[in-house]
């Protein structure tokens, strides 16, 4: 509280923001909490409420294409909630199977990402500090290129006259090209490829902290390396595994770009449905209901993620 004036006098911008925040009664610790709270409020809670509101309204040919859910008439505020959008989602089997399919694809992709990411994270955590930084750089490097470009690059790899098929045919391994593009296989490749870093990074952060003396103790007590992996390393990295899995699973459920570009016509993911409802059908209320239901589908994994992060923080302290 008494430090704040020094900081303000040195930083003109800080001074300005600081004064504004001070006026609203934020000081010191309060400020530290206020900024992320404000961020979440503006960029998460308010949009969520807007979407929730639209999901309860009725579609209309108008601009915006839905009717308001409250109205002033004769000095009274009257509400008209329309739960029909939600009813519709449960009546039409298309939506239910799309949710199931999304959860299945995201789940399988998460398991594949875990099986690929764990050994990679383990290797990075075990390598010498210099090599470690280089390897971490390589994991993060793809983020420097546009995600869309990278998915297009996969089309180049997977299509019938793409790099993989051409190579296999020129080697004489196959006579006819494999159909890979526009299949679920391509969707798995795309999702695993896209989200693998989100698996590796939390696993790495967990594994690098593992005290090697636990492994020595296990070895001293008669455990072969493979046994100490399953009895010590794996259980101790559980919070990293959960964090990584959730960071892959949660966005993968709602993934839209990968199934749209790499998937086939029968790849039914909820993200594509949402896109269609919103842009093709211009049915904003249904699209919003789809989004809200998806959020509830994800509540359980989000809780799991939070618990894993709390456990991680506890372990660090």
């Amino acid at each position: 509280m008494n430090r704040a004036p020094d900081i303000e006098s040195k930083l003109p911008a800080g001074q300005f923001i600081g004064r504004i925040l001070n006026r609203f009664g934020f000081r010191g610790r309060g400020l530290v909490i206020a900024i992320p709270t404000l961020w979440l409020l503006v960029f998460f809670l308010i949009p969520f409420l807007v979407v929730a509101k639209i999901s309860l309204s009725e579609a209309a040919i108008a601009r915006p294409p839905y009717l308001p859910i409250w109205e002033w008439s004769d000095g009274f505020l009257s509400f008209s909630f329309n739960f029909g959008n939600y009813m519709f989602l449960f009546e039409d089997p298309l939506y239910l199977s799309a949710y199931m399919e999304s959860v299945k694809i995201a789940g399988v992709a998460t398991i594949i990402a875990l099986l690929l990411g764990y050994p990679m994270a383990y290797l990075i955590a075990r390598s010498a500090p210099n090599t470690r930084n280089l390897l971490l750089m390589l994991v993060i490097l793809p983020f420097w290129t546009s995600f869309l470009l990278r998915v297009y690059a996969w089309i180049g790899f997977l299509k019938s006259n793409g790099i993989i098929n051409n190579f296999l045919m020129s080697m004489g391994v196959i006579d006819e090209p494999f159909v890979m593009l526009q299949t679920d296989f391509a969707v798995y490749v795309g999702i695993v490829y896209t989200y693998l870093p989100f698996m590796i990074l939390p696993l790495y952060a967990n594994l690098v902290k593992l005290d090697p003396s636990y492994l020595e103790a296990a070895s001293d007590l008669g455990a072969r390396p493979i046994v100490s992996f399953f009895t010590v390393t794996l259980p101790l990295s559980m919070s990293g595994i959960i964090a990584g899995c959730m960071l892959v699973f949660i966005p993968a459920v709602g993934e839209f770009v990968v199934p749209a570009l790499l998937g086939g016509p029968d790849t039914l993911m909820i993200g594509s449905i949402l896109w269609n409802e919103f842009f093709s059908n211009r049915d904003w209320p249904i699209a919003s209901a789809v989004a809200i239901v998806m959020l509830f589908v994800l509540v359980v994994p989000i809780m799991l993620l939070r618990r894993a992060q709390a456990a991680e923080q506890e372990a660090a302290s």
Partner: protein
Amino acid sequence: MSHENATPDTQPWNDPKAVPFLQVKNVTKKFGTFTAVSDVSLDVYKGEIFCLLGGSGCGKSTLLRMLSGFEDVTSGQIIIDGQDQAGVAPYARQTNMMFQSYALFPHMTVEKNIAYGLKRDGLPRDEVAVRVSEMISLVQLDKFANRKPHQLSGGQQQRVALARSLVKKPKLLMLDEPLGALDKKLREETQFELMEIQENLGVTFVVVTHDQEEAMTLSSRIGVMTDGQIVQTGTPHEIYEYPANRFVADFIGSVNIFEGRIVEDEVDYVVVQSRETNTDIFVAHGVSGTVGQKVAIAVRPEKMTISKDPLPDMRNVIKGTIAEVAYMGNRSVYQVQLESGKRVRVAHPNRTRRGAHTLTWEDEVYVGWAGQAGVVVSQ
């Protein structure tokens, strides 16, 4: 050298026919160009508590880790129970280790931690349960069997670590600073418990410590280490009374060192002339030196007598003034300033209540010690 009567039962190291249980032969360990352990040789016999004593960073842990198999030896040989340990993985060795950091598995309860080693041996469940509960009782942790390590105090964690390393009944147990995290009182109690457990189970212990009192209390023999080398091996008594060199004398307990030159060199005594004392010092044992050679003489503070009256029956007497008095309850320690400017520490037992107050600052005193009290140590 032995200054006690050799009784092969309790002192196998004095029995030429005894076969050491652990033999360390010219072991060297280098990390890059840095030599952490340098040409160490060591014999430890069955049932011993052998202490490796030395300051921080002198290579104690490294030596222990080579015995456990966590570090390879750069050169030399380690033989345990007649088996060369070269190339034997830690999990295949018949040894267990109690880690300096305890290294308790944080995700397992006390019970599971202790059971871990037995399960790895594939023992049947009920036998594991029996042995674990026996061990838990032995270290008095019955009430805590289902707690996780982070729910225990330092002393309790230390007991779990001990129990976990003992439960497999290893032939050789290595303990790296086992009592380092405990406060003084608890440490003293635990030292005796440790000795009792060791006696009951008949396990051979190699204990690493930097605490000379702990080493003196626990061990059958001590190996004093400095700079990766063992500078002296012997019983606590030998190490204390006959330190091989100045480092050992200084490291173990408190000591007064006088530097000088040999002026008389006979078979059973030497006389050393020292500028620090103004009088010649008589030492009642022979040395392998020559007249004129520079030597140092070590005299323990408690082997000196302090008095206001001359001390006619002491072989060595010097005069000085009391510069500091430290009252320690059971004894007082005086720092006496000699005419040469050197200060000498003299410990005087407080046998009567008023004894402590008869000597005080600025008193002119005589400090004396017998011919057998001093030892000549190499530099």
